[in-house]
């Protein structure tokens, strides 16, 4: 059986840390990166006798996530205890949601080379995060070779929303697109920092393969420890190939958890996993059910900003942008908003967009500047677009002017005026320059007449040089052609 005969079936579980000020069940702060065990209280330490009290803001954020993923919001929802032993879990149970999650039955649309595809979202539920373990002693400071571990409970109790996709994803590209779209949405609705390095966004992938055309799911493995979208893509690709190789040998895929190893670029089995956990879920008796008022749920939906997908569609329609361009500009909300201000003051939104995605993006990256650091506003960039469209300056000159705009915040019209850059579009002047260049380069003329049409570029270049770049290149090209063809 060849690799192409298998169809991958992928589901993604994303854990999103909410950027509430305090933890889910107590008033400890959620700030990242402070000294160990300094953001802990009796409740999140799980001291005997302590009790949880639900953070209302976390519920609000969770419902907003549900709305933004087109989920149904549960009429009746409750928390459950998920019981297991691990040293990062202070109560030896995690308060999560089992059978009555806050959000269920939603979807997310992604755009890939093949077009738009809808990925189902099974559920998005609320739960508390565990603490952090550092594995020490032993050879590599990694879990499987350490002598001991150290526990820090600062992170314990931070609110998480676990977003589970349907197994609708069929490739690593789709997985990447799903994650990118999801992250964009979460940032738009401002519920999380979505920072994978800091752990405020985590992803596990469930991967299986099956013969193309069959309906039955193959055995799936769970891939963990992927710290970036790039690694998710790589890990999925590796795992698909690995499982195909296993099946090709006539063996069976083992249902297990596997870790992505960034040094060896492989997924590896997490040995030591005994039998599957029996979590003994039961309703959390220290908390009461969540039965949200419909008006409140609607109010939260109304408070959502325009989401990336809707904005993208609108940009395509209102500003004539391509799907790709609209996608780039709406990836981040601030960028989209910046663009939209500009699109309203320019006569050429498409041109404006091109400048943003081209020279502006390049300079921002090179100089490590963000939107808030820019020395110019949309009106000034629009000015530049207008100058080019009016053919007052040519594209090469425009790049020069742009640098002034970016570095100094100078008005493009002023720059053109001060530097006398206005394009020369006077036919008589250009003809004179062309005549001179043709006379100075007789061999090239012969080549052209002999069939080498391409040399016209060289001649245009020479005219541009002679005019200190000010000649209207289009016109130069036309006039040279006219003279040579006559």
């Amino acid at each position: 059986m060849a690799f192409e005969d298998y169809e991958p079936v992928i589901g993604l579980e994303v854990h999103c840390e909410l950027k509430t000020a305090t933890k889910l069940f107590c008033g400890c702060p959620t700030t990242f990166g402070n000294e160990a065990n300094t953001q802990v209280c009796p409740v999140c330490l799980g001291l005997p006798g302590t009790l949880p009290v639900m953070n209302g803001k976390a519920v609000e954020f969770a419902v907003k996530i549900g709305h933004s993923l087109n989920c149904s919001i549960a009429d009746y929802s409750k928390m459950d205890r998920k019981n297991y032993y691990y040293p990062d879990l202070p109560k030896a149970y995690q308060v999560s949601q089992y059978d009555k999650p806050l959000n269920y039955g939603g979807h997310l649309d992604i755009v890939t080379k093949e077009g738009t595809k809808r990925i189902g979202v099974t559920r998005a539920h609320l739960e508390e995060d565990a603490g952090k373990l550092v594995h020490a002693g032993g050879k590599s400071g990694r879990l499987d070779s350490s002598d001991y571990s150290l526990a820090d409970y600062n992170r314990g109790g931070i609110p998480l929303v676990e977003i589970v996709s349907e197994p609708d994803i069929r490739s690593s590209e789709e997985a990447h697109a799903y994650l990118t779209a999801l992250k964009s949405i979460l940032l738009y609705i401002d519920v999380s920092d979505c920072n994978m390095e800091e752990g405020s966004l985590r992803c596990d992938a469930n991967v299986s393969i099956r013969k193309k055309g069959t309906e039955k799911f193959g055995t799936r493995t769970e891939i963990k420890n992927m710290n970036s979208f790039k690694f998710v893509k790589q890990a999925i690709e590796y795992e698909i190939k690995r499982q195909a190789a296993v099946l090709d040998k006539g063996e069976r895929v083992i249902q297990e958890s596997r870790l992505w190893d960034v040094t060896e670029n492989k997924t590896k089995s997490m040995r030591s996993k005994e039998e599957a956990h029996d979590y003994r879920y039961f309703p959390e008796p220290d908390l009461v059910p969540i039965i949200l008022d419909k008006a409140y749920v609607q109010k939260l939906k109304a408070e959502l900003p325009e989401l990336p997908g809707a904005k993208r569609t609108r940009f395509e329609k209102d500003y004539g942008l391509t799907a790709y361009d609209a996608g780039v500009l709406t990836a981040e909300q601030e960028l989209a908003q910046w663009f939209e201000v500009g699109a309203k003051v320019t006569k050429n939104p498409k041109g404006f967009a091109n400048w943003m995605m081209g020279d502006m993006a390049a300079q921002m990256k090179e100089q490590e500047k963000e939107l808030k650091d820019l020395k110019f506003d949309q009106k000034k960039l629009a000015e530049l677009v207008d100058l080019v469209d009016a053919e007052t300056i040519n594209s090469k000159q425009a790049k020069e002017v742009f640098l002034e705009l970016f570095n100094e915040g100078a008005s493009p019209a002023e720059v053109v005026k001060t530097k006398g850059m206005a394009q020369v579009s006077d036919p008589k002047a250009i003809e004179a320059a062309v005549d001179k260049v043709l006379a100075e380069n007789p061999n090239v003329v012969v080549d052209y007449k002999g069939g080498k049409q391409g040399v016209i570029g060289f001649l245009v270049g020479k005219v541009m040089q002679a005019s200190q770049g000010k000649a209207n290149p289009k016109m130069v090209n036309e006039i040279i052609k006219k003279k040579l063809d006559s």
Partner: protein
Amino acid sequence: MALSEKDVQYVAKLARLEVTEQEVAKYTQQLGNILGYIEEMSKLDTSNVEPLTHPLDMKNVFREDVVKPSLTQNEVLSNGPEVQGGHFKVPKIM
């Protein structure tokens, strides 16, 4: 649903309780008796009865998202059986 020694061993493992062979035998007998008594409940027809998780009919208890003081690191670690560098130390996990 008779309780076997194997069941007791499984449950002891789930509950992280080390048990000796004698204890397994003793607990199997005692727990078996208790479960036998509990079986009384199966006589009741509860097919149309909703479970009651809380005696009180409460819902929607929330608190404001306002930071409150945490314990100091020393207080957190004060009852720790083994601590190191501001952390709780535990033996190897794998």
